[in-house]
């Protein structure tokens, strides 16, 4: 086969492309562990000997920008994605099974929501939150996340629900199980890969979102780590070590979260579709 004749070519090209692609990230990683004064003259050099000064500086900030941000980020992200997974699984299931015209309309409306950038509707959202008395609260931010990201969750679950045989649900129902029990005990476990995708994607997006928390939480209710990154950029424009360390630390939790769930993730994303 062709593979054997070019056996040296593939790994070579793959490594080269991978290295070129990785270069910008390499810059961040090496400079996190380099003394600040070394970064501008030698941006690409290896950090020898490595130092933890930049990381320490971020963790021991007197205003606790990172620590408080981390707590808020974890709370907002974890709660938002848990609620989102549950609600969009149910809604996705309903829309995938229902034949009603109303369901179709709901589906199209939800799909439109996928492509609306938050900034465009942020001003009226603050109006809604003010009316509900939820402005500058974590609850408000979480609810907005739920409303805004529900379409994406629905999209993923819908595709996946179709791959679950209807007969399974019917059989369970004939056994006398209630709709809710059927959904929780039969359908939902089968949707696990899709749940993993929803958790990862929305986790990444919500964790990384910066404009929504910036505006909805306001300055006095603490910030999230991503807002913290933005602030760190403003304060230390020339201190790349501090900025990179902040970015590195802010990204670490979500990266770990992804790695933990990645096996299920692709399956859920391509769902019934790729199975063909």
């Amino acid at each position, binding site marked *: 086969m062709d593979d054997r004749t070019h056996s040296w070519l593939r790994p070579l090209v793959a490594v080269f492309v991978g290295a070129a692609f990785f270069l910008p990230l390499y810059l961040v990683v090496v400079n996190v562990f380099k003394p600040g004064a070394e970064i501008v003259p030698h941006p690409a050099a290896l950090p020898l000997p490595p130092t933890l000064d930049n990381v320490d500086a971020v963790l021991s900030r007197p205003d606790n920008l990172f620590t408080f941000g981390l707590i808020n980020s974890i709370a907002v992200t974890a709660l938002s994605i848990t609620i989102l997974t549950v609600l969009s699984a149910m809604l996705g299931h309903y829309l995938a*099974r229902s034949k009603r015209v109303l369901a179709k309309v709901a589906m199209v409306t939800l799909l439109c*929501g996928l492509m609306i950038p938050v900034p465009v509707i942020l001003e009226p959202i603050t109006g809604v939150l003010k009316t509900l008395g939820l402005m500058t609260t974590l609850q408000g931010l979480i609810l907005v996340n739920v409303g805004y990201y529900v379409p994406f969750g629905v999209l993923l679950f819908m595709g996946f629900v179709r791959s679950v045989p209807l007969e399974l649900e019917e059989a369970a129902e004939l056994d006398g199980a209630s709709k809710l029990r059927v959904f929780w005990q039969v359908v939902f476990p089968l949707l696990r890969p899709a749940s993993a995708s929803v958790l990862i994607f929305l986790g990444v997006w919500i964790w990384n979102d910066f404009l929504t928390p910036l505006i909805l939480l306001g300055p006095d209710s603490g910030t999230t780590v991503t807002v913290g990154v933005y602030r760190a950029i403003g304060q230390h424009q020339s201190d790349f070590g501090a900025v990179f360390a902040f970015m590195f630390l802010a990204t670490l939790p979500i990266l770990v979260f992804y790695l933990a769930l990645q096996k299920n993730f692709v399956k859920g994303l391509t769902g019934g579709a790729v199975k063909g």
Partner: protein
Amino acid sequence: MTETQHGTRGEARPAAPRPSPAPGAGGTARARRRSSTRIGPKLGRFSLFALPGLLAYVVFVLIPIGMTGYYSFTNRNPFNPPTKWVGLRNYGDLLGDQEFRQALVNTVIITVIVAVFANVGGLLIAMLLDRPTRLYVALRAIFFTPVVLSAVVISVIWQAVLTDDGLLNSLLRGIGVDDPPGWLSDPDLALYSIAWIITWQMLGFCVVVYLAGLQGVPRELQEAASIDGAGRFARFRNVTWPMLAPALTINTVMLLITGFKAYDQIQVITNGGPGAGTTSTMAFQVVQTAFNGNHIGYSSAMAAVMLALVATVSVVTLRLLQRREVTQ
């Protein structure tokens, strides 16, 4: 916390009250879907399943959109009250607004570039990495990392790489290019640099999805085709490519979403410049007009046009998705 507790606990409670079945539900099912005629009417009860999700969407997305629509017919400006009804004037002004037109064109350019290049690049890299050994698995992780990073972080990184005295240009000078391009300072280039940055971030996503697709192509099919004497390209076209159609759809949807939303990169890297509006996108233009110029009324008209465009694209995308379902 009461709000969220209420929202979720309500669902987990088994004894939740159910609305009675809606009359006429599921009546349109066709003969070949016999099973659904049986389950159809019962589905009416399921609306409890649909409600919480839809409610959140309605309150936090649809109502704000409605408010935007309403504002677009007013001269709303929080710094210049009172707000008056101005009819279609904002939309009339939009027609002649060169900047908005440019922002629209820029958004389309970014979206198309991202959709094409991330798809093609993602497919090529996926084919390159479609081997089970450790090296390739590690490389996959590298390609996926940017997807997990925030746009703010990515913007800071690429700004450091692409400024005129940035890393890329010092590299180019090192290999003898005397006058390397101003990736972000040249008004003819900056938009493409932005599009590239977004492409770079999304590439890994496409790689992963295509890899899943490729792994779904049965080896027997490949081998059968190769026994039949089909060349490499013919094999790809006739065997692999059709199997990748769903992956293509998923990627395209994701890339369209990302392209249309482009905002953070502009805000952090170029502020819409260099020069008037060279890299301004629709989302950026809306925010600038609303928060910098205080013209909420006018920015709402922009947002409305944008939403109409988004709705059109969404409907087309939905068609694509449905066609896929038919062929599968």
